[in-house]
C-alpha cells in the first residue's frame, strides 16, 4: 500500500535519516569493505602497506585441514542444536496452545531462557556439567571417566550443543506459540467436526499451517549457532580441548585477535558472511512467496 499523503521538505528527511545512515555506513559497510580488502591482500612484514595477493588468503584457508574440521563441526553444531531446540519448543508450544487451565504459568516460564546472556548460560551449564562437582559428579564416582568435557572433545561438544539448544528454547517457543495462535479457531473446529482428534489435528492441521514460521525459525536458529555460539564457547571450553569445540566464529576471533592473522581472519569472515547472506536471502525469498492463511 503506497501512502498518498506526504510532507514536503527538501532537507528535513535527510536530517532525520542521517544519524542511522552514518552509523550503518561507518560500522557496517565500511568494515565489510575492509574485510574484503584484507581478504585479498597481505600485510607486509616490514610495513609499507598491503600487497595484493588475489585468492591466496582463501587458498590458504581452504587448504588448511583444520579449517575444514571447524566447518564440519559448525555444521554438526548448527544442525543438532537447531533440531533439539526447535523440537522441544514446538512440542511445548503445541500443548500450551491448547489453552488448558493453568497454562499461562507454564507459558511464562517457557520464555525465561530468552532473557539470558549466552555467557551466563555457559557459566551455569559449565557447573551443571562439571565432572567433579554437582550433578554429573556422582555418575563419575560410579564409572570414573564416563563424562569429562575437560579432556574429552566429544563430551565438550555435546555439552556446548545442549547449552545452546536450551538457551534458544525461549525464543523458538514464543514464535511457535504466536504462529499457532494466529491459526483461526474455525479451522480447528471444522477439523474437530470432521472427527479429527486433537493429536490428529496437531499433525495434519497445525503443523502444515505453521510451516512458514518453522522455516523462518530454522534459518534464524542456524544463523544464531554461527553468531551466539561465541559467548557459550568462550565461557565453557575456549574452543578446547585441543580445538574440539572450535566453530567458525571462534576460529575467526582466535586467528584475528590472538594470532593476529588479519588476512586469514578476514578471508574466513568473508566465507561466514556469504553463508549468513545466503541463508538470509533464502529466508527473504521464502517470505515473499509465503502463503497467508489468516
Amino acid at each position, binding site marked *: 500500500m503506497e501512502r498518498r499523503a506526504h510532507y514536503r521538505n527538501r532537507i528535513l528527511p535527510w536530517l532525520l535519516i542521517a544519524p542511522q545512515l552514518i552509523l550503518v555506513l561507518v560500522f557496517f559497510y565500511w568494515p565489510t569493505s575492509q574485510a574484503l580488502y584484507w581478504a585479498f591482500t597481505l600485510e607486509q612484514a616490514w610495513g609499507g602497506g598491503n600487497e595484493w595477493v588475489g585468492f591466496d588468503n582463501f587458498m590458504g584457508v581452504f587448504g588448511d585441514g583444520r579449517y575444514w574440521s571447524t566447518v564440519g563441526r559448525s555444521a554438526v553444531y548448527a544442525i543438532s542444536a537447531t533440531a533439539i531446540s526447535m523440537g522441544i519448543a514446538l512440542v511445548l508450544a503445541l500443548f500450551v496452545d491448547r489453552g488448558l487451565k493453568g497454562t499461562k504459568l507454564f507459558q511464562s516460564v517457557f520464555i525465561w531462557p530468552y532473557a539470558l546472556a549466552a555467557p551466563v548460560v555457559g557459566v551455569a551449564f559449565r557447573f551443571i556439567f562439571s565432572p567433579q562437582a*554437582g550433578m554429573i559428579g556422582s555418575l563419575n564416582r560410579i564409572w570414573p571417566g564416563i563424562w569429562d568435557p575437560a579432556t574429552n572433545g566429544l563430551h565438550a561438544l555435546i555439552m556446548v550443543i545442549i547449552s545452546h539448544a536450551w538457551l534458544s528454547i525461549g525464543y523458538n517457543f514464543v514464535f511457535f506459540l504466536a504462529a499457532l495462535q494466529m491459526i483461526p479457531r474455525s479451522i480447528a473446529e471444522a477439523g474437530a467436526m470432521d472427527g479429527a482428534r486433537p493429536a490428529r489435528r496437531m499433525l495434519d492441521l497445525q503443523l502444515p499451517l505453521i510451516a512458514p*514460521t518453522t522455516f523462518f525459525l530454522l534459518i534464524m536458529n542456524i544463523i544464531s549457532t554461527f553468531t551466539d555460539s561465541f559467548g557459550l564457547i568462550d565461557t565453557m571450553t575456549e574452543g578446547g580441548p585441543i580445538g574440539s569445540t572450535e566453530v567458525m566464529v571462534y576460529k575467526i576471533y582466535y586467528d584475528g585477535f590472538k594470532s593476529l592473522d588479519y588476512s586469514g581472519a578476514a578471508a574466513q569472515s568473508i566465507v561466514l558472511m556469504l553463508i549468513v547472506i545466503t541463508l*538470509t536471502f533464502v529466508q527473504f525469498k521464502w517470505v515473499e512467496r509465503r502463503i497467508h492463511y489468516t
Partner: protein
Amino acid sequence: MIERSSLFDFVTYAVMVLGLVIIITPFWIVLVAASLSLPEVARVPLTLWPSSHLMENLSAAWSRADLGPKLVNTLIVAAGVTIGKITIAALSAFSIVFFNYRARMLCFWLIFLTLMLPLEVRIVPTYSIAANALLPFQTLLDATGITSLIEAIAGIRIELNWNLLNSYTGLILPLIATATGTFLYRQFFMTIPDELVEASKMDGSGPMRFFFEVLIPLSRTNMLALATIMFVSSWNQYLWPLLVTTDRPNYGTVVMELKALIPAQNGTPDWNVTMAGALLVMLPPLLVVAFMQRWFVRGLITKDK
C-alpha cells in the same frame, strides 16, 4: 479447547510439566548452588535444596568481580543502546514513510540489509573502526585528494582521529544502528491512515509536530515491545565489550566479568560464588522479560510479519 478429552488433557499436562522441569532445573541449580557453603557445593551428589549462605555468596561475588561499578557500566550501556536504537529507528522510519524523496527506498534497503551482517561476522574490521571511527572519512578525503589540496593551500594536514576504545561511546555507538527496529517502526507507521496526516496538515502542524504529538503517542506499545527486546539484547552483549574494553576495571560490563568468577582448573572449586554472580547478572533482564512479557511477545510477533 474445543472438545473434552481427559486422556489427551493428561498428556498435555504431562508434557508441560516435563517442559517445566527442563526449563526450570538449570535456574534452580544456579539458585541452590548460590546458597550453599563451600563444603556443601563440593559435595557429590549436589543437594537440591537451598542452604542459608545466599547473602554471603552474593557479597563475595559482588566484591570479587567488583560488580558494583560493573553493574553501573552495564546499565549505562544497556540504557544508552536501548534509547539510541529506539530514537534512531523512529526517526529513520519517519523519514522513510512520511516523506516522498527518491532515495528513500535505497536508504531503507541500506539499513535493512545490515541484518545480513551480524557483529560476529565482521568483528575483525569493526574493531579497527573502533580504534578510529573517523577512518572512513579520512580515507574518503585522501582518496578524493582533498587532504593534499588543503595541505597545499593552508599548510595543514588533516588527521581525523576518534578513538572509541575504552569509552562508553565505543560500547554504545556501534550497537545503535538497528535494522529490526527501523523495520518494526516502518511497519507500524505504514498502518497510520492517510487521513490522519491530512487532518494534522490541515490543522497547520508541521512534520515534527506531527511526529511528536501524533506518532510518538500512538506508537507507545511498539516502543515498549522494542525497548524490552533491545534492553535484553544490549544487557547481554558479550563479544563487543570484550573487544573494545581493555580497561576492564573502569569500563567492564557484568557479563564479561562473569568469566573471571569461574574457578581455576586447580584452584578452590567455589562454584557457589560463581553461581551467585551468575544469579546477579541474569536477574535484571529476567525481571524485565517477566514483567514486560505481554508487550515483548507482541513485538516479536510483529517482527515475524
